[in-house]
């Protein structure tokens, strides 16, 4: 089987791997690199559990072929906490009890991070829109919406 070299930056570290052509980024991250924070919930693009940030944009790693990410800068939830200090979003998810089974959580946090990167003080509607591609079956969404709003508030307080 044809192996293709892929190089990208993952959570600040250079990664270089040979993957089978046609391998999705989700498989490359989980099975080759060992970053299992993106989850495979549907492999259809309908659940958002595999969400990662590629070059500043939210993307679905299950529908992205690894070899199209050559040279890209990729962020996942596993790279979010800095030296063991939780990111404000992670902190807020804990404080607002926004996780239950936890399977959707990494994807939710990625979707929320992209939002806050571009819109530090989002409205509730903007949060709803930002999370709309991510399925949660446990929480009924409200605690997650509250977590993102809480993180935004704590960010703006820290900035002030």
């Amino acid at each position, binding site marked *: 089987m044809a192996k293709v070299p892929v190089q990208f930056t993952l959570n600040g570290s250079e990664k270089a791997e040979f993957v089978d052509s046609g391998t999705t980024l989700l498989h490359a991250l989980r099975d080759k690199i060992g970053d299992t924070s993106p989850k495979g919930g549907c492999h259809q693009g309908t659940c958002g559990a595999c969400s990662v940030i590629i070059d500043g944009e939210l993307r679905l790693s299950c529908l992205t072929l690894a070899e199209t990410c050559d040279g890209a800068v990729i962020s996942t939830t596993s790279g979010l906490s800095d030296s063991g200090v939780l990111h404000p979003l992670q902190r807020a998810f804990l404080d607002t*009890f926004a996780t239950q089974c936890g399977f959707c959580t990494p994807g939710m946090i990625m979707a929320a991070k992209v939002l806050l990167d571009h819109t530090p003080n989002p409205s509730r509607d903007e949060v709803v*829109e930002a999370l709309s591609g991510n399925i949660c*079956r446990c929480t009924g969404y*409200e605690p997650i919406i509250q977590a993102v709003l809480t993180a935004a508030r704590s960010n703006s307080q820290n900035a002030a």
Partner: protein
Amino acid sequence: MAIRRGRGVAAINYPTGMNLGGDPTQALVHSTPTGNFMVTLSSVDLGQGMKQIMAQICAETIGVPTDRVVVDTADTDTGPHCMGTFASRGTHRAGNAVIQAAREARQVMLEVAAEELEVNASDLETDGQGNILVKGAPQKSISIFDVALSAHFKRGRSISGRGMFLIPRSYPEKETGAMKPSTCYAHACTVAEVEVDDETGEVTVLTVKNVFEIGRALNPKMVEQQLVGGSWMGISHALYETTEPYYPNRDHGGTDFNQYLMPGPGDLAETEIIVLERPSADGPYGAKGPGEMCANPQIPAVANAVFDAVGVRIDTLPITPERILRALKAQAAN
């Protein structure tokens, strides 16, 4: 076009645990040499928070802070038998098993402390902070840390306990159906308020006010998680979900999260949750199982609210815009 508003109520009860009993769960508890406690189970955490709740139950029973307890669960090489996490049984069955195991471990712990303090074990109590005190003379105390060290290295004792909880199986009487389906029941009452678009049949759930009686809220924030999520699922069942939209016709079953409908984050009803506690006689610290019942009363409450709004009864789930529109057209034709 008219948006019409209505409200409906429903009240329900729900049995805790496997119907007719016969569903055992076992637990083991032991202390480490420095007085931390390990709970060993084979129960499964589905996201409802089994591990955290069992830690709190063990901590309460032993008399230590929750962060001194570690739960090792769902490994069949180490954990004793649990029937499984379903039927609202996890907290109730496993919680009782953990209490029994923790009580036995606590007794050993108090006996070792009694030897160290040279008093009777029955004269000792815990302060919940990790210390064992002589009742009425709290200045005479020993830390659980020291008791565990003594048990392990000096006195050759195992601070441990075994727990087992089993509701005996009930067999229904053939002719009358006399049986004991459950030993405790949770309760709920929901009032739902909806808007119905009478030209399209679309329903918006504006508010749901849910009152749940769950025996005891062992961890109120985690109870809230289950109840809020369950309330959402109830609304979802009422209005959206099915794998066979044209049942009993088998065609057009959804195969993804786009086709299988559930309310999105833009469809949320304003949700109010009120919890009452009537402790159950056989529940762990009175707790009943709230996990399933919390998703039930919204379904009929929404159905009744739809009727209140537009005067048509949809007796088939889910209550889709199509079913409402067909009923409205039939109503107009009559």
